[in-house]
């Protein structure tokens, strides 16, 4: 491997990390602003950075929309006193935030986020690693994220985190099944390809080729399972602050809590990205057919469209959080095993038959 090539790869990876981390930081701001809007209050609007905040008109607007708030939040995590309870299992207590954070960041290596035309004149994905089994990779790595929560809950060696960790692990195992089952009809629909880029290209022509139009039930089950997998309300059993203080991260503070926090938002962003790729036509615009122009303009446009679709989905996550109340734990289990899983299996069988019929007719 040439050195320049290696440096180029590392640069791309660092850029991607920077973008996802930046998005996670601003997702926190978005969450606070959405919460504020839904609760009819202004939200964070005081934080200023001396020079930028002092600009005549723009500075004031930027301050009002809270654009500097993530900086303050981040610095707070770094400079706060780090509480370190005496009763914890030190090794796993330190390990848990990292284990929660790393899988969320790893999955982005195989997530395509745009399209460009390569030298051969073919459409190629903008992605760090165009893996043929990309979607399986994402499922596999994101399923490792549960260890962070389980270990964090267990290592804290106190009751509420422990309960949170136990609940999280049971919930994530349950909903992984429904998620995988909901995914299978989509993969069958696109000829058994596990490559995310191929799946998006299959939805390229126009909005009515999007998978969500053909498979609304798969999309619905996948989305519900995604809420459960990312531990978002109404499925935030791991935290549920009304009955478990703060759940698995009760004993964590400062930067270690920050890692959990950013990991959760990175997970949401990646999950939204996967949903966009699978069901919402990825980087293709909804209305104008084959609208992406050639050359770099098309690439930039595709990335922007993808970004805004993901942003819309992230907003949807937050909207749901501040709208629906939390499920009770037994309801979560019941929903997962007695509703979603049978529904997903029925959905799978139905689409297997439909796809076979279509193949018969086309022959």
């Amino acid at each position, binding site marked *: 491997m040439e050195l320049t090539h290696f440096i180029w790869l590392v640069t791309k990876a660092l850029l991607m990390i920077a973008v996802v981390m930046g998005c996670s930081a601003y997702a926190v701001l978005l969450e606070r602003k959405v919460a504020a809007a839904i609760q009819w209050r202004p939200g964070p609007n005081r934080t200023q950075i001396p020079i930028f905040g002092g600009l005549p008109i723009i500075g004031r607007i930027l301050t009002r929309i809270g654009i500097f708030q993530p900086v303050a939040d981040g610095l707070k995590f770094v400079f706060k006193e780090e509480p370190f309870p005496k009763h914890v299992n030190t090794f*796993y207590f330190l390990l848990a935030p990292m284990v929660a954070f790393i899988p969320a960041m790893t999955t982005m290596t195989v997530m395509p986020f745009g399209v460009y035309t390569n030298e051969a004149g073919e459409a190629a994905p903008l992605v760090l690693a165009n893996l043929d089994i990309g979607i399986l990779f994402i499922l*596999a790595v994101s*399923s490792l994220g549960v*260890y962070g929560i389980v270990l964090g809950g267990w290592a804290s060696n106190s009751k509420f985190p422990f309960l949170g960790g136990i609940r999280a*692990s049971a919930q994530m195992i349950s909903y992984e099944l429904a998620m995988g089952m909901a995914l299978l009809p989509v993969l069958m629909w696109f000829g058994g390809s596990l490559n995310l880029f191929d799946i998006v290209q299959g939805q390229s022509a126009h909005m009515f080729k999007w998978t969500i139009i053909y498979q609304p039930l798969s999309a619905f089950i996948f989305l519900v399972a995604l809420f459960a997998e990312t531990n978002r309300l109404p499925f935030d059993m791991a935290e549920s602050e009304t009955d478990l203080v703060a759940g698995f991260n009760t004993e964590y503070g400062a930067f270690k809590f920050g890692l959990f926090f950013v990991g959760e938002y990175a997970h949401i962003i990646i999950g939204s990205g996967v949903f966009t790729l699978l069901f919402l036509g990825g980087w293709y615009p909804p209305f104008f057919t084959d609208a992406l122009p050639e050359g770099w303009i098309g690439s930039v446009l595709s990335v922007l469209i993808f970004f805004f679709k993901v942003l819309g989905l992230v907003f949807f996550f937050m909207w749901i959080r501040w709208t629906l109340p939390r499920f009770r734990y037994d309801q979560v289990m019941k929903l997962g095993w007695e509703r979603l899983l049978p529904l997903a299996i029925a959905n799978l069988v139905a689409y297997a038959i439909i796809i076979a019929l279509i193949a018969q007719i086309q022959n």
Partner: protein
Amino acid sequence: MKEIFFLIFAVLTILTALCVPLSRKPVNAAMNMLVSFVGLAALFVLLETYFLAVLQVMVYAGAIVVLFLFIIMLMDANQSPPPKLVRFLASFAALALLAVGGYYLVFGCGSGPYPEISAAAPAALSRTFGVELFTKYLLPFQMTGFMLLIAMVGVIVVSRKHEPETTGGEK
């Protein structure tokens, strides 16, 4: 480069695998098992069998060890009791088996020419895997399914026995 990676992951896999039975705390054992499984997946990647690697992570690391951990935490098994004589004997028997098996694996039939693995095109890997599984290896596949079913029935029987009879209403 590849050799270095192989050495790193091979040592990681074997060391953590060794730590699984040697650790006194069940949680440590489970975590070592997790690392061992992930190391094994990395070895699969080095063999360019990506599909197998991903399955390894997804099934073993992502689901099975989580269940182990879950059960360990629920049982609150903090430390295994100090080993008894029977355990020592069993360990030595296992060690002897391992030594004999390892010897034959390395020196016995290990010298013969191995059949070349026909590497399918990576794009069609999952498809090839599925077709082979459901045609050529259908019988073993079904047998495995039945064995799992037996295990499931066994679990239901065992767990029903300890259920108190006074619980009325729905469970």
